[in-house]
C-alpha cells in the first residue's frame, strides 16, 4: 500500500475498506507479502519479458525498414498494463492510444498476429490495415488502438455508458497519456463520466499513463499544475496515484479499484507513475529533450528489474528460472518475427473492404 497514494479522503477510506478483500486473496496465495501466488506472478513476469523482447524485435525491424509508419514502444511501462489488465474480466472493454502493443499481448492476441500487423501483413490482427497504432482484438476485449491524442477518451466513456445501460456488470479501462490530459477531449469526456457516474452510469477506470513526457514535452513544460490526477477533481471523479513500475503495487490497486468501479458504476481516476525508457517513437533519435543521465537514472526502476527483485526476495523464483523465461520469451519474439516476415501482404481486394458495414 505504501506505493499507492490516495489523494482524496473518500478514496482513502474506500481503499481501507477494500484492503481485506485483497488481503484475503493474498493469504490464500502466498505468505510472502505478495498479493498473488507465485505461479501467477511468474506468469506475469513471463508476459512482461515477452513484451519487452517482442518490442525490441519490432524496433529492430523498424530500423531496417521492415515496419513502416510510426512505432511507439512500451518499454519501461510494462508493469502498468500488466497490473491493470490482470483485473480484466470477459466483457470488459479496453481502449488506449497508439502505444498499444502491450495491451494487445496481455489481453491474449497472439504475438504473431501483433507482429504481422506491425509488418502490415494480411495475417495481422487488423489485416494490415491499421498498423502499430491501431491494434484491435475485440474478442479479447481490446477496442483499439487510436492515433489522435485525446481523441479516444470520449469513446471509452461511451463504452462505459453502454455497459451500464446494458446492465452488463462490466467496465471499461481507458488508458491515456500524460500529454493527452491537456487536450479538450479529456476534459469534456471526464466531465461526462463524472456526470453520468452520479447515476451509476459510468463504470470507467481512467488510467493516466504518466511516463513523464508527451513526445518531447515534459509534464512541467505542458502545464502549470503538474499534479495531474488532481485534475480529476474538476469532474467529481475520485482518484489516486500508483507506482506503476512496481507490478505488485499496480495489482493491489487494480483489484481494489476495478471492484469499486464495477460495483458503483462510477468512474475512477488513476495516475500511474512510470517512465518511458524508449524514445517516443522508434524514429525519435535525438532525444534532445532529456539527458542520457536522466534516462539512465530511471533504468533503476525498470519494472522488469523491480519485479525480478521482488520475486527473488520472496523466493518466488530463481535466477535460472528467470533465465529460462527470458529464453522462452526470446523464442516467442523470434517466432513472431519469422511469422510476420513470411506472411503474405494483404490481398489487394482488402483495400476497399471494411469502409462501410452492411
Amino acid at each position, binding site marked *: 500500500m505504501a506505493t499507492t497514494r490516495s489523494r482524496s479522503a473518500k478514496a482513502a477510506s474506500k481503499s481501507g475498506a477494500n484492503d481485506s478483500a485483497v488481503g484475503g486473496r493474498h493469504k490464500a496465495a502466498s505468505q510472502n507479502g505478495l498479493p498473488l501466488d507465485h505461479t501467477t506472478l511468474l506468469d506475469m513476469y513471463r508476459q512482461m519479458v515477452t513484451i519487452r523482447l517482442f518490442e525490441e524485435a519490432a524496433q529492430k525491424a523498424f530500423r531496417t525498414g521492415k515496419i513502416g509508419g510510426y512505432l511507439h514502444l512500451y518499454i519501461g511501462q510494462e508493469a502498468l498494463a500488466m497490473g491493470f489488465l490482470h483485473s480484466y474480466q470477459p466483457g470488459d472493454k479496453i481502449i488506449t492510444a497508439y502505444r498499444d502493443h502491450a495491451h494487445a499481448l496481455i489481453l491474449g492476441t497472439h504475438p504473431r498476429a501483433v507482429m504481422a500487423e506491425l509488418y502490415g501483413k494480411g495475417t495481422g490482427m487488423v489485416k494490415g490495415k491499421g498498423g502499430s497504432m491501431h491494434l*484491435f482484438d*475485440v474478442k479479447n476485449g481490446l477496442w483499439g488502438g487510436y492515433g489522435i491524442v485525446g481523441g479516444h477518451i470520449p469513446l471509452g466513456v461511451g463504452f462505459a455508458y*453502454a455497459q451500464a445501460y446494458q446492465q452488463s456488470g462490466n467496465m471499461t479501462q481507458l488508458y491515456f497519456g500524460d500529454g493527452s490530459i491537456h487536450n479538450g477531449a479529456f476534459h469534456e469526456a471526464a466531465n461526462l463520466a463524472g456526470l453520468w457516474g452520479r447515476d451509476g452510469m459510468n463504470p470507467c477506470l481512467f488510467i493516466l499513463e504518466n511516463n513523464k513526457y508527451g513526445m518531447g514535452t515534459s509534464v512541467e513544460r505542458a502545464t502549470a499544475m503538474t499534479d495531474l490526477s488532481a485534475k480529476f477533481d474538476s469532474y467529481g471523479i475520485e482518484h489516486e496515484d500508483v507506482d506503476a513500475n512496481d507490478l505488485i503495487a499496480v495489482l493491489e490497486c487494480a483489484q481494489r479499484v476495478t471492484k469499486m468501479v464495477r460495483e458503483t458504476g462510477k468512474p475512477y481516476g488513476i495516475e500511474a507513475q512510470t517512465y518511458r525508457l524508449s524514445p517516443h517513437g522508434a524514429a525519435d533519435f535525438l532525444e534532445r529533450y532529456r539527458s542520457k543521465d536522466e534516462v539512465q537514472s530511471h533504468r533503476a526502476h525498470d519494472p522488469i528489474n523491480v519485479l525480478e527483485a521482488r520475486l527473488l526476495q520472496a523466493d518466488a523464483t530463481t535466477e535460472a528460472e528467470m533465465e529460462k523465461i527470458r529464453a522462452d520469451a526470446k523464442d516467442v519474439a523470434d517466432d513472431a518475427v519469422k511469422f510476420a516476415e513470411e506472411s503474405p501482404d494483404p490481398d489487394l481486394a482488402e483495400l476497399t473492404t471494411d469502409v462501410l458495414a452492411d
Partner: protein
Amino acid sequence: MPVMTYREAIRSAMADEMTRDDSVIVMGEDIGVYGGTHLVTDGLIDKFGPKRVIDTPIAEGGFTGAAIGMAMTGMRPIVEMMTWNFSFQAADQIIQNAAKVRYFSGGQVTVPLVIRGPNGGGVQLSAQHTHSLEGFYGHFPGLKVVSPVTPADAKGMMLASIRDNNPVIFLEAGALYGTKGEVPDGDFVVPFGKARIAREGTDITLIAYGRQVNMLLNVAEKLAGEGISAEVIDLRSIRPFDEETIVTSVRKTHRAVVVQEQWRWFSVASEVAAIIQEQAFDDLDAPVLRVSGAEVPAPYARNLELAAFPNEDQIAAAARRALYLEK
C-alpha cells in the same frame, strides 16, 4: 396519409424506433427537459426517460465521441447537433473516429450512429451560425450524408438512418421545420443513394437538395410559363450519391443547373458538374452551370443575407443561360 410537419416527421421516426428498439437513444444539448431548441425531440424524455434521452453539457466533441463509443458497443445513439455549426467542435470525432474506426479495426467494429440537426441558413444567424456542410462531411469515406427536404423523406430517411449500421450525417433543412406534408403511415424507409425526380421535364435539369429544392420547383413553374420544361431533381442523399438519375436526366435534357446554398469552391455543385461532364459529355449542349452562395461568411442584415443566398431569379437566369436564351 397523415399530414405532418418536417419536425414531427423526424420526431415520429425517432419515437417509433425507440419504441421498437431499446438500444436506440437520443442525446444532445437541451433535447430533454427543454424539449429541444427546435422542439424536434419534444416529449421524448417523458416517454423514454433520462437514460435514453440524455441532456448533455456543451461539449460537442465529448458527447459525439461518447456516442461513437456507445455505437461501437451495442447501442444506436442519435446525437442532436443543436445546429450543425457546432459540429466543427466534433469534427475530429466524426472524421477521425466515426468515419474510420471500422476500417482501421479491420472491420471489427460498426458504428450505427446518427448525428442530426438543422443545417443551412436563412434566419439571420450570421457568420458563425450559418453553414451548409453537405460537401464538408460528404468528402469522407466511411460516412453517409443525407439531406431530406419533404416531411415524408425526413421520416423515411430518418428510419433508414437509425437502422443503418454506419454513421449517418443527417442534415435537416432548419428553415423548414414547420412546413407540412403527407407522410406515409408506419414503416416507411427511404433508402439512401436514390435521388428523387421532384418534377419531370425535358428541356433542362435543375438539381438541388434541401430547401433549395423548393425554390427549384417554383422556378420550374415560372419557366413553364416561358415555355421551358424543367426537370427538378432532389438529390436527397449526398453520400452515397445517385449518379445515374442525374446523368439519365441530363442525357434527356442536355442541360443542367446545380443550385446550392453552400459556397461554390470544392462543393457538392462542383462534383455534380464534374460528374455530368464526365458521364454525359457528348450529350451536353451547354456547360453545367452552378448557382451557389456568395463567397462571404454569412452576414446578419436581412438584405445582405438574402443577397448571399441563391434566389429564384438567379436560378431562372442560370437556366435561361444554359438554354442560351440569355447572356
